[in-house]
């Protein structure tokens, strides 16, 4: 690559206890759309935060057009020509399109008064240059997310950006909007900009990028020209398993007993812009795995099933009863439990004690008047702390002080003592140590043997394949297939995730 626009060399960044980036090299050429892919914790966001000046690397160098740079703040990076547009668009929704394009650089008369006519003319010209059509006096809040996204891009480009970072710009766009954004990206590529594009959708990676860089666990796994990299190779690189090894036969599982009672049945359940209609049947004594990349809809389906988000259509029945207005409270009453993906945001109440966190759901279901006697609370919490071997000095320790694995076990304990018939585990093993991981996996086996119906969600395909009796494969917010028995192999999961080839493009 002769004209490298950005060269990042040997970038190292550590946070307390975590190596986020471990000597990553990255090169972005001028006039290139470069996709950066990787699963959770791969280091994508840390890398772009360093490039855009939001963080400083511990070690390593960044060159922009051959000159070394060390941006300390996003504003500084912006001045140097590196601009970023994030998923949550950083514009002022109450101001007009023209102001959002030009505020801070607006044309002014000698006394400092804003020249509105000139401002609107300039804004129109900028939009025209980008091939966008919109009335520039419209307040931004009246625009669709796609238009806002493109206004943000236009603002960045008009500020003489040479490098444009697009962080998951398409995650709330529909197919038509996405292709409009792609048109704009191609146009900017033609102008010689380097575009760093982050997305979870493989289709989109192939639809628009020239090169693909894959990160995994804070290291660069590889950089390839998009046309030289097969989808399967890409998926295996992201997930860290070479295809041949992945094809190895899966250990054990007894055959699924199709006569067991159906615990959870979903028919054509969907939520607009979030999950396409899907069917699902979960039986007593089986583990149903969800496999898919981040953003494929695996967490979203769990939230729909548990009633966190309302569904826009379809029928759902739990333990034989049809559920109309769903909510977590109702789901719990029907015998469901969900250990959420994001422990911090949706699982734990940080400064409540380990005991209170374990007993929160039980107390919630008993109502405020029927609090358990203190001794019984203690005994219950103690029992689960012991059986799950939660490492805590005492039960009244704030749960925030525990390690990730122990926090996860606190949430499991919360639900196990409710004795649910249906257990949804969303990424129960993410970010926890190997020992705790093995423990959780064998616990899932025990629970299944006792007749519990379990949905097991994990970004680690090997784990899903190992633990589950059946696997639903998800791709681009819809169910791409179901695998069971002899078909349930890592290689077949990956093939389904990668999509059977075919450039169907868009979301």
């Amino acid at each position, binding site marked *: 690559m002769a004209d490298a626009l950005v060269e990042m060399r040997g970038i190292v960044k550590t946070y307390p206890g975590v190596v986020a980036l471990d000597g990553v090299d990255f090169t972005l050429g001028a006039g290139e759309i470069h996709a950066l892919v990787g699963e959770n914790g791969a280091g994508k966001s840390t890398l772009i935060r360093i490039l855009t000046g939001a963080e400083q690397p511990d070690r390593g160098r960044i060159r922009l057009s051959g000159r070394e740079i060390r941006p300390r703040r996003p504003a500084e990076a912006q001045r140097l020509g590196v601009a970023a547009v994030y998923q949550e668009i950083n514009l002022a929704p109450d101001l007009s399109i023209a102001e959002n394009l030009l505020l801070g650089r607006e044309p002014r008369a000698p006394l400092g008064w804003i020249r509105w006519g000139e401002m609107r003319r300039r804004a129109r010209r900028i939009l025209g240059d980008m091939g966008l059509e919109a009335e520039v006096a419209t307040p931004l809040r009246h625009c669709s997310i796609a238009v806002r996204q493109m206004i943000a891009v236009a603002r960045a480009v008009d500020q003489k950006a040479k490098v444009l970072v697009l962080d998951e710009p398409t995650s709330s766009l529909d197919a038509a909007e996405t292709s409009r954004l792609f048109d704009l990206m191609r146009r900017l590529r033609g102008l010689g900009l380097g575009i760093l594009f982050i997305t979870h959708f493989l289709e989109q990676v192939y639809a628009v990028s020239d090169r693909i860089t894959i990160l995994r666990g804070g290291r660069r796994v590889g950089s390839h020209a998009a046309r030289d990299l097969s989808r399967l190779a890409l998926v295996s690189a992201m997930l860290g398993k070479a295809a041949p090894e992945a094809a190895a036969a899966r250990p054990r599982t007894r055959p699924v007993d199709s006569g067991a009672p159906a615990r959870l049945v979903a028919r054509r359940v969907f939520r607009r812009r979030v999950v396409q209609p899907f069917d699902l049947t979960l039986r007593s004594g089986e583990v149903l795995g969800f496999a898919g990349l981040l953003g494929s809809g695996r967490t979203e389906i769990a939230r729909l099933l548990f009633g966190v988000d309302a569904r826009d259509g379809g029928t759902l029945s739990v333990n034989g009863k049809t559920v109309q207005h769903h909510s977590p*409270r109702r789901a719990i009453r029907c015998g469901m439990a969900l250990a959420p993906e994001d422990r911090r*945001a949706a699982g734990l109440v940080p400064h409540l004690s380990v005991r209170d966190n374990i007993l929160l*759901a039980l107390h919630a279901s008993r109502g405020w008047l029927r609090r358990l006697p203190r001794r019984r609370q203690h005994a219950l919490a103690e029992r689960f702390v012991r059986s799950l071997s939660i490492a805590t000095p005492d039960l009244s320790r704030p749960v925030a002080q525990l390690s990730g694995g122990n926090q996860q076990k606190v949430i499991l304990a919360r639900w196990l003592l409710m004795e649910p018939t249906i257990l949804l585990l969303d990424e129960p093993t993410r970010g926890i140590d190997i020992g705790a991981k093995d423990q959780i996996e064998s616990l899932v086996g025990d629970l299944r043997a006792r007749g519990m119906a379990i949905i097991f969600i994990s970004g680690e395909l090997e784990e899903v394949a190992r633990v589950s009796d059946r696997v639903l494969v998800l791709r681009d917010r819809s169910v791409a297939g179901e695998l069971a028995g002899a078909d349930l192999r890592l290689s077949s999961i990956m093939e389904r995730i990668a999509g059977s080839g075919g450039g169907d493009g868009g979301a």
Partner: protein
Amino acid sequence: MRDVARNLLWPFAAVAILMAFNALRDPAFLHLRLVDGRLTGAMIDVLNQGAPVMLLALGMSLVIGTGGIDLSVGAIMAVAGAAAAAMLHSGASSASAVGAALAVGAAAGLWNGSLVALLGIPPIVATLIFMVAGRGVAQLITDGEIITIAPDAAILAIGRGSLFGVPLPVLTALSAAGALAALARLTSLGLFIEGVGGNEEASRYAGLSVRSIRIAAYSIMGLLAALAGLIDAADIAAADANNCGLYLELDAILAVVIGGTALTGGRFSIAGSLLGAVLIQTLSTTILRADFGGRSVPVELNLIIKAAVVLALCLVQSGEWRRLCRPIRSAAA
């Protein structure tokens, strides 16, 4: 537990220092005497006059515990006092007047809670509405006049009576504190409030009914504000819609902050809020009694000192301040 003890140490020390200051200037400050079967003395007066703020601070700590705030408590006091006085005026018994006042207070709390929990209006805005309209409601009830309460009405005991030598307002405040402590320890309400204030999303996942918990907190607040309004009305034997409870919402919030409860919610301390209220009243009393070189200190100094205390406490609680102080501390170490 150690946390709580440390949080209470400072307000406790402040109360002790103020008491000591008063005692040094005038040893009679510490005297307690039994007059007509009733304890009297400056320290009893502090508790007695502080009773309304204690009640408000108790309720406010629950509301702040859920991550909210209630600016309308002074207005609720006025409405409740007006309701009781109007009932008496129309010939009802003292018991039904008290009942009416409490019902009105709870209804006002329910209204606030519903605006916050059901309509999703931010707490400051939601309670501001009742703060604006509440005194109008109170004047509507009293027909715009100050209704006096007949000197022989049984209801006056709430403000002036005593039991076993202890003034009833003090007993009321302490038993409300006891009841709340029991509610927090013997039922799950305390846990739920801390859950909702600490992490609303997680509480929802765990099956808590976030809305009803919020509404409950504001309703209890309304009930306690009504009690405070009754004490105030009984104390002056009149319902004054304009001045009853004026600015007390600020004292209540201040008491809660002094008691070590962060305004961000998720935790509350009943003992701390009680102590905070006592500290505020001790401060007022100290200023009232103090005189420098024969010149008495103007009561208004109280306002300025309160302002300074609010700012100082908030500064100390703010993260930015700690960041500023860190280099100084590590340099000293």
